[in-house]
């Protein structure tokens, strides 16, 4: 059994209105040092395989096909176990 942790983030070139709003909220409660804030998604997947190489390829495929929209998002992942 392998565990995959997938992180999906909005590309730097793409505006993240949610991040901007949350940054503004932090500023308003005194955390002025926050220079930028980007919101992304974190997903945990449990995979029924012990083959790391195959798992890596499959997770990449999942990201490309569904988990991220590569027009506006980047992704990265870690395999554990």
């Amino acid at each position, binding site marked *: 059994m392998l565990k995959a942790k997938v992180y999906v983030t909005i590309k730097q*070139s*793409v*505006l993240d*209105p*949610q991040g901007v*709003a949350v940054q503004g909220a932090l500023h308003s409660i005194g955390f002025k040092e926050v220079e930028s804030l980007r919101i992304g998604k974190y997903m945990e997947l449990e995979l029924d395989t012990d083959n790391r190489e195959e798992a890596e390829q499959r997770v990449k495929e999942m990201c490309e096909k*569904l*988990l991220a*929209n590569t*027009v*506006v998002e980047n992704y990265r992942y870690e395999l554990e176990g």
Partner: protein
Amino acid sequence: MRFAVLVFPGSNCDIDCYKAVEETIGQPVDYVWHTATDLSAYDCILVPGGFSYGDYLRCGAISRFAPVMNEVAKAAEEGKYILGICNGFQILTEAGLLPGALRRNDSMKFRCHDTVLKVNNNTTPFTRGYAEGQEIVIPIAHGEGNYYCDEETLQKLRDNRQIVFTYQDNPNGSVADIAGICNERGNVIGMMPHPERAVSSLLGSDDGKAMFTSILQAWRDTHGAANIR
């Protein structure tokens, strides 16, 4: 001319689309469930608005893998007319049938009001009933209608005249005020505003009517009078 209105779990503008076809042009129209595997009977496919699959993950991300979407891709390939409205537009971009993506509105608000659109291209099958540059009033209702594409794609959209509608007063932060685009061939169009909600002055505007009459006229012109039912 036969119309299909696709229905996904969570679609909520399907009835509006169905009624708009019935009332503007009186052509045969069917609801088609997302599991359908044959759209060959239809000449035009409407992908309606709503919150298909609860907008989980991203708007349209899950719907694009519904069985019927393979048939939509096939229909697009065959040159049939495909109109995606609101969530339908999001689904068509996720499916790669139209370029770009739709992000959260820059205001972070769900915007639900009339907008003034400019018809930038009146040579598509969907807009031939409008004048070039005509201003029309069509309502929007979305939280994620902020169109994005990179510079290179934007240039392509401009060069091929794929920007069909632009907002006069950008409500969501869309790149280049884009409200609706078509594919290179011009038979697939996606737009955030709802023409099906603007087909009678009782609804506040009947400026959306011409989209439906345009589609019928385009189809008649390419299929000859003999096919008119």
